[in-house]
């Protein structure tokens, strides 16, 4: 990973479009094609939506975009925590649908909780990348 951009925004649903715009701009710079950029916009949205929830959370959502060698990695950290955990899906099918989307669109994804807060991440290789 040779280049890196960080974005910090309040953990509010109305601001997630900024995370999508940012990944689209970075993926374009990193030579991902149009379809892959659309895939990444949706994948980032899925990662962040789970962290932010329908009502938003206190604190900041900190995104780190790293790219190089034909791959893009994004880490989303919700600092300030999520009192009561990250549950709170509005519709019963959302969680399963989100997992299917991420499984299909990126090479790897995951989430964990650490001292600093809840974190979700993904990694996608560019089509045709050799490494």
């Amino acid at each position, binding site marked *: 990973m040779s280049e890196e951009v960080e974005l910090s925004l309040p953990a509010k649903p109305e601001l997630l*479009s900024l995370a999508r715009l940012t990944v689209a701009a970075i993926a374009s710079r990193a030579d991902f094609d149009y379809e892959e950029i659309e895939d990444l916009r949706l994948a980032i*949205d899925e990662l962040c*939506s789970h962290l932010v929830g329908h009502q938003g959370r206190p604190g900041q959502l900190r995104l780190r975009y790293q790219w190089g060698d034909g791959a893009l990695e994004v880490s989303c950290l919700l600092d300030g925590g999520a009192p009561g955990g990250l549950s709170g899906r509005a519709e019963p099918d959302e969680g399963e*649908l989100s997992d*299917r*989307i991420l499984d299909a*669109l990126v090479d790897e994804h995951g989430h964990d909780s650490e001292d600093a807060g809840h974190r979700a991440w993904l990694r996608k290789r560019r089509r045709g990348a050799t490494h």
Partner: protein
Amino acid sequence: MEVSFDVEEHDGVPVLAVAGEIDVYTAPRLRERLLDVAHAGTSTVVVDLTEVSFVDSTGLGVLVSGLKRFREAGGDLLLVVTQPQIMKVLEITGLTTVFSIYDTVAAAVAK
């Protein structure tokens, strides 16, 4: 870009045309609009996604819940989809086998 809605009747069938992006922020408004249509007493609704440029799992969750509600009432929720990216999301989530999907409003209303 956020989202906008327009409801018109075509041959007696309400058509909810959605434009913009459906995400965790805008999906609650889609849910409200579907409830408005259901409460108006109709059994079937067509949701036109032709002008939708983005939909995520929260938007799909609202559509699935709407589908269940309309089918339980003896009707259906039909989709109009022309954007390849929207069709792709429906395909990878397996929802193309759940929804009846048409490429024009006229085709959906005729069913």
